[in-house]
């Protein structure tokens, strides 16, 4: 019984330490300034459909859903998934990313709502590389 109490106390200390570390990380991120970019969703289309962002920097992406319906911003390459409520702005943070092309789409209207984020330096990618990206 005494051993059990000792183990639970140890676990409590561990949980407290983890919470403290997470709090420090969260506070640091909350204070950091991020460059802001905006994308508008209108009639199930993203404007601009292509945008360029700097490499190896975290950016703030504001998505303004001007449609009357719900949409879900989705990107496998960016690891992002965000519900966009009608007539509301949503914020997500992207990066830091290595140069390349990262596509995103509206999960509820994937045929029309599509876009591309180009990270600086991606313009240098050769067509053969691009084809390889498309295959993946």
């Amino acid at each position, binding site marked *: 019984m005494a051993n059990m109490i000792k183990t639970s106390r140890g676990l409590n200390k561990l949980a407290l330490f983890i919470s403290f570390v997470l709090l420090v990380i969260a506070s640091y991120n909350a204070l950091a300034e991020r460059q802001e970019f905006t994308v508008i969703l209108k009639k199930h289309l993203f404007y601009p459909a292509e945008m360029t962002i700097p490499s190896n920097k975290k950016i703030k992406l504001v998505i303004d859903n001007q449609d009357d319906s719900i949409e879900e911003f989705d990107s496998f390459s960016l690891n992002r998934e965000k519900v966009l409520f009608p007539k*509301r702005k949503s914020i997500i943070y992207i990066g830091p990313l290595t140069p390349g092309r990262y596509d995103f789409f509206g999960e509820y209207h994937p045929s029309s709502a599509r876009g591309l984020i180009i990270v600086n330096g991606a313009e240098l990618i050769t067509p053969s590389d691009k084809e390889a990206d498309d295959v993946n």
Partner: protein
Amino acid sequence: MLINTVLVFLQNILPIFVVISLLFAQQGAKGQFSAQKTVQASNLLRGHQSNQDNSITADLPLIYMLKTIGFGFIIVLLLSYFMAELSQLFLGKGLEIFYSILFSLIYGCIVVSFLCTTEASQEQKQDKTLLDQQTLTQKKQIVSLVILLLVLCVHGSYFSLYVMSLTIQNTEIDTLYSGIVVGVIIGTGICLSIAILLYFILVTLAKKTGRKIVSYFLLLFGVGQLIQGLQLLEQVDIISSNVPLWSTNYLIAENSELGYFLTILFGYEATPSVMELLVYLSAIIVPIFVAKIIVYKQNTTASSMKGTS
């Protein structure tokens, strides 16, 4: 619309079928183990021993499961109704914070279930009293139902949003409902097939390698859920995200069918960051380590009690 409904259904509802399959497989594996034990016991001991074993085997009664699913549906409807307001809390980070808490709770409950399984197998080995074993079974039963409820609420609410988004649009009513109904029927068929196949694979594996294998699969599923929660916190900059360590997209693309399935089954991530990798590994290692401590302490207590008697 039909194909998209099937895809969205698979992405959001498959985890619910997978967790049901895992929970049933855990019960099935235990049932087999208990049945084997019962046969052995009945050969050696009195006849009523087998009845006692059968009463412990009833891990997850179907009626409780159906009640939980029913209750889950009500929460799903409430969640999807208030989701828009929820998303505006904490400077637009409300939804991510709320869902990451739910994902962490899923992981927490799975860890508790994992530790209960370890404790139960130890108690069976040490032939503890029936009352002790029943208390532990009841605890595990409640935890399993909470896991099911949480998974249903988290993943079901996203699909419920999709259905809501379709009903808001000015699409013809026939096209709309045929799209939703047929899509849901096809999606359910695929999910059921995968869940049944997974169940039989797990039960067969448990037969060959020991029943703990199912608990490990459940733990991996939980770790996958925790990683999803972590990604939500990274998305709103609460937790720092780094450049991906590697990319295995050329082997298994995350947006492929296999990628989807592996992501749900054990949180497959083609481009993990340092933080994700650290959390992933520690989320597996810590519960296994704690389970080993529990086994060690129970063995020590049992041997010291034998020594005193």
